[in-house]
């Protein structure tokens, strides 16, 4: 698999494809965060701006740093420097994350991680709940 160049807001990003081992390693690293952030991630890509703002506010109240989590998730699947990610607006971050997830088939990776008993049922359920892949990003 070759790396992919994508353009978001006139900015080009290079996304590195992951092999099964790297992908599963990324799943293991993200698994502990997913459980606590699932409720916020689930609505983060909502088409209504107000819902997104409320989700972020609730996350802040619960001391969950959602942008930081998004940075972590994106860093696991790309080589985009963290300084660049910090400059990106939230919808672009989500768009980037969505592309990374689709390219590396994170849904299949999560299922494989569960089959291999690398993650438990609770974390898989949290991931399915928080999955941003199936939601539309504005």
């Amino acid at each position, binding site marked *: 698999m070759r790396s992919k160049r994508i353009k978001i807001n006139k900015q080009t990003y290079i996304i590195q494809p992951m092999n099964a081992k790297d992908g599963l390693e990324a799943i293991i690293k993200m698994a502990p965060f997913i459980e606590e952030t699932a409720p916020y991630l689930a609505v983060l890509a909502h088409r209504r701006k107000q819902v997104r703002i409320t989700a972020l506010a609730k996350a802040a109240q619960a001391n969950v740093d959602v942008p930081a989590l998004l940075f972590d998730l994106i860093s696991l699947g790309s080589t985009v420097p963290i300084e660049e990610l910090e400059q990106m607006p939230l919808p672009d971050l989500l768009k980037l994350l969505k592309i990374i997830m689709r390219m590396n088939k994170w849904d299949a990776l999560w299922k494989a*991680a569960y089959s291999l008993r690398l993650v438990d049922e609770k974390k898989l359920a949290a991931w399915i709940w928080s999955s941003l892949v199936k939601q539309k990003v504005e």
Partner: protein
Amino acid sequence: MNFLAALHEQTHQTVHIDGRSIVLSRRPVGEHYRLRDCGRKLESEDPLEHLQAVFDYLEIAGIPQPEQILAADLASVLNTAIEINERIDLLPWQTTYLTESGKTKNTDYDNRELAIIIHTLAEAYHWSPETILNLPPEIAACYVQEIMLSEWQDREFSYTLSEAAYDEKGKYRPYPALSWVVEIAGPSEKEARGPVKRSMLPDGIVIDYEKEQNEIKANQDQ
């Protein structure tokens, strides 16, 4: 354990990975122990160690570049590899020889069983470690057991020729048997015959002809 079956049976299975067909076969004794070691790590609580063990296991099992396998195929390929390489029959020396007293000794170390196999076969047959490591695991275990038994018989023979084998009255003192050799008793005559229903037993006094004949024979001998 059937030695002949172990000698001739070729265990292999074809797995389809990303459009390629790979034939997985049961690994020889050297890799068998590596797989066993890896299998223990598959039970690890640490998911990263567990993941590493998955890819190590697949590589030792004979799959080239396992990290390139599609994630969706991983679990089924791993299951096939484990199925082919799982340990079937353990011989008595393998189950009890290393833990004779049930305690660990300071001379014990991880995977000592493999070292025993190499040492025993190399000493008895003068085979190179490479030859031994390429034997099927069951065959190697059978050979080791036969060598151990044969050595014990030699020692017992030497013992019978020595004075230590007899007490002051000249009575033979048997040589201590190997702790893992146990005679397997068959079913007793009564057990083999099965219980007889009370209603089917004869009424009155039962004459035991066998007992009577034995008594007559004993009297004649005197």
